[in-house]
Structure formats: C-alpha cells, structure tokens
C-alpha cells in the first residue's frame, strides 16, 4: 500500500476493507451478499495473510454475523461487519440489541434495494428502514469518504458519550465497485487516532454480568431514553471527531452536513450518498448560467441534524429533497423529517420530495435538471416516483 499522502486507484470496497484493517478490529464476522461481498472477502484475505491480528468468524447468516459482533463487542473487542439489503434486514433484530446494549460495533452497508421485486442494485431503502433502532448512520459520497468515515465511525462509536453502533453507508456498485483515487489512512496515524478500545463494561467469566437486562414497565422507558439521548448527543461528538480527523489526516470527510453553494441559493436540493456528485455537477452548470441553486448534503442521517439543516436551508425559496427511498403508504423518509424540522422552526418554505433511483435506475444530470426546472416553475410535489414508466404497469393498476 502507498505511503501517507499518496493516492492509489482502488476499488471502493477494497479500499474500505484496507481502511477497516488499519482500524485494527479484533473480531470480524460477515456473510457474503452483493454488493458488500468484496469488503468482507478482502478482510478475510487480510486476516488469513496475517496482516491483521483478528478473528474472522465465518457465520451462517447476517443474523449470525451481527450476533457474533454483539458478543465480541460485549466481551470488550473492537468488532466489525458489513452487509447489504436483505442482509441488513436479517440483522435488524440484533442491531436493536447492539444499540440497546450500547455496544460500539461498526458496520458498513453497501446500500442495495430490498426485495421484492428482486434487485441487486442501489437505493437507500435498506438503510432507511432501520433508521429507528439507534444505529448512527453516516453516508459517503465517494470511496474516499467511505474510507475515512470508517475511521471516524470507530472513534465516535467508542466515545464514552456515545457507545452506539455506527453504520457507514456507501452506495452499492456506485461506490463499492468503482475504482477511484483513494488515500488510505496511515497506519501509525490511525493507531494514534483511535487508540485501543476500552469497554465500559465487558463480559468476563471472572466478573460475570448481563447486558440489556429485563426491565419492568417502571424502568424500560428510561432504558430507551438513554439510547435516544446518546444518539442525539452523538451529533456533537461526530462533529468533534470529524474535526480531529481533518486535523490529523487532512481531509474533511466527516461531519453532519455539507453545504454546497447553498448559502445564497433560491433552490436548495437535499440528498445523501453518491447521487450528490451528480447534483453538484448540475449545480455547477446552472450556477454558470446564473441560476441560484445549491445542495445540502446529509452526511449523518442518524442522528438527524435538524438544527443544522434548518440553518442551512432557511434562506431558500424552495427546497427539493431527492431521495432514494420512501415509506410505502406515506411518502418519503428524508422529506418528512426535513418538513418536521422546518415546521418546528416556524418556516413554511415549499418542500418537494422526489423518489429517484430505486433499484438502481439511473438518474443522469438531465434528470436532476428536470426536477430543478419543474420546482422553479412553481410546481410542488409531496412525494413523486420520478419518471415512473406507467406504460409497463399492468392493466390492473388504475
């Protein structure tokens, strides 16, 4: 691997695997699923080659992978797993437990559509649908951010003020399988930055204890509140850790939000993940033509950075959320959370929500521009499946 300060051309998943290895997890457990597989496959090679002193536990399912990480973390080990789509769904029950037991497991989600219909391609419905369980969620725009956010994830997760699992989201295929210039974190810097994980409580036969114990109704709410409170307060820790990361490694990959030409924008788009690269290109083109367009990119989706988003968009004439997910029977996922924050701030800026790229449907710059053109002509939509192909729907659909 290249020395500090040198970029290499690496596949996103491979780069993530090598970055994770430099964070020195002591236990890794994963089950293969496209498009995550290259991360765990490469990590198993790194362990087998003796480059990382860790237990790589081969498991029968993602439920097993998450459970191994839960147990390992409870025993005081730094634990890591990676998954996608159905795999994340299968981990769901364990993720609630990991969060509730306040174990700083780090995982990657190579975002992929959830069945059915079966699709292996990217959208955010896997990550969005486990937003409520107390797992902190970071979203990377490119491979470099996915690499760096893993280092930030371990540091923030293990902070005594947080002690929650952190999931780094990177778009399946769009980031996992694309070769990009990446600078891996230097091993010595990484060691100094993270230190060794010291558990607050740990499983030890000489000093037995139980995690996540039974609570009667007179205590359960307080147990749940502690998760909520720690997740809310993790926002400040994520910013603090991200700033320290930037000072140490020279890259501004973390944080809660990125404000891209949004300060004086009339039309502000809000999005997360790799689509933001496309949106920035469109913003640049329109800015060249004198149109006041900007992007607010959500880098941390949980905790939801309400105040920061409100501050970033409050000068806009209209806001358009471009999201790769939604909640059937309701609408968007990001869109209503944004509206909720605006409402509490007393702002009645028109908000539109567009659902794009489900199951990997490509949205090129012309699609983003069409959305901007429509809202700038005064259109406001609650939540729309963008460019839905009605012609291929069955006759039974009215």
């Amino acid at each position, binding site marked *: 691997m290249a020395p500090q300060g040198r970029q290499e051309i690496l596949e996103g998943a491979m780069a993530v695997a090598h970055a994770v290895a430099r964070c020195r997890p002591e236990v890794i457990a994963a089950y293969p699923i496209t498009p995550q597989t290259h991360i765990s496959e490469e990590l198993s090679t790194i362990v087998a080659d003796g480059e990382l002193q860790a237990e790589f536990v081969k498991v029968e399912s993602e439920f097993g992978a998450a459970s191994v990480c839960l147990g390992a973390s409870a025993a005081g080990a730094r634990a890591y797993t990676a998954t996608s789509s159905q795999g994340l769904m299968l981990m769901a029950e364990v993720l609630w437990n990991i969060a509730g037991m306040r174990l700083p497991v780090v995982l990657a989600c190579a975002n992929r559509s959830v069945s059915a219909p079966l699709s292996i391609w990217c959208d955010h419905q896997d990550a969005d649908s486990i937003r409520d369980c107390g797992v902190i969620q970071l979203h990377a725009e490119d491979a470099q951010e996915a690499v760096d956010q893993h280092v930030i994830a371990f540091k923030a997760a293990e902070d005594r003020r947080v*002690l929650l699992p952190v999931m780094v989201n990177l778009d399946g295929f769009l980031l996992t399988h694309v070769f990009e210039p990446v600078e891996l974190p230097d091993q010595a810097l990484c060691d100094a930055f993270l230190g060794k994980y010291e558990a*607050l409580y740990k499983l030890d036969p000489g*000093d037995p*204890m*139980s995690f996540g114990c039974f*609570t009667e109704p007179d205590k359960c709410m307080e147990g749940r509140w*502690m998760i909520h409170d720690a997740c809310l307060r993790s926002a400040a820790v994520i910013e603090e850790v991200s700033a320290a990361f930037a000072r140490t490694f020279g890259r501004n990959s973390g944080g809660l939000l990125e404000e891209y030409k949004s300060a004086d924008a009339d039309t502000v788009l809000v999005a997360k993940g790799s689509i933001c690269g496309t949106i920035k290109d469109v913003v640049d083109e329109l800015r060249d033509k004198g149109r006041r367009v900007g992007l607010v990119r959500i880098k941390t989706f949980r905790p939801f950075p309400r105040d920061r988003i409100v501050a970033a968009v409050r000068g806009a004439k209209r806001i358009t959320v471009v999201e790769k997910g939604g909640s059937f029977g309701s609408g968007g996922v990001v869109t209503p959370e944004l509206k909720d924050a605006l409402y509490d701030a007393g702002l009645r800026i028109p908000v539109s929500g567009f659902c794009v790229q489900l199951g990997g449907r490509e949205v090129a710059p012309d699609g983003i521009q069409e959305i901007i053109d429509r809202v700038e002509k005064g259109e406001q939509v609650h939540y729309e499946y963008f460019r839905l192909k009605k012609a291929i729907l069955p006759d039974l659909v009215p």
Partner: protein
Amino acid sequence: MSAKLSMDKLSIGCVCLPGGSIGNHTGAWRSMMPVFKHAACIGCRACELVCPEGCVFENPGKKHLVEKLKREIADRDFDPDYCKGCGMCAEECPVDDIDMGLEEK
C-alpha cells in the same frame, strides 16, 4: 465498579450483575395461580424442575402423609413474587396434586 451494578439504578446498556434481576417480580404477569394440594404429592420434584422461574421450593417446616407410601413427604410451595402462572408444574405433576385456579386480584 461492577459491584455497584443493579437494575435499581440503571447503567449504560442496562448491564447488571448476577442476581440483578431479582427485583423483577414476574408474578405480576399471572392470571392463573397454582394450588399445591399437599395430598398425593410423592416428592418427585418434577414441579421444581420444570418451573421456568425456579420458584417452586420445598417448604422445610411442612409435611403431609402419603397413604400409599406410608410416609411423610415435604410440602412443595411456590413463590408468588415470581410465579408467572404458566401451569407447567400442574401439567407435569404425575399424581395430579397441583390445580390451576383463576387468581382474583
């Protein structure tokens, strides 16, 4: 540090020491309650072994005479603080010496 852990004052992750759940009185879940008749009981301890709460015990001061065996057998009783009323003791008793009755509160 761990000596302080209990479920009276919550810890991060709701961690507790062995015995820390002793304050969880699962008896509040109960609608049916066992009645140990102390008549035909032969002291096989099946009720103690199948109880998922481990709350059936031998009552050392109390005995009953079993005619068929021509000897006295120690009474079994249950701890109402923890008995969830599942009825497994009554179901498994080989001499039908435990009834389940509706508990009126």
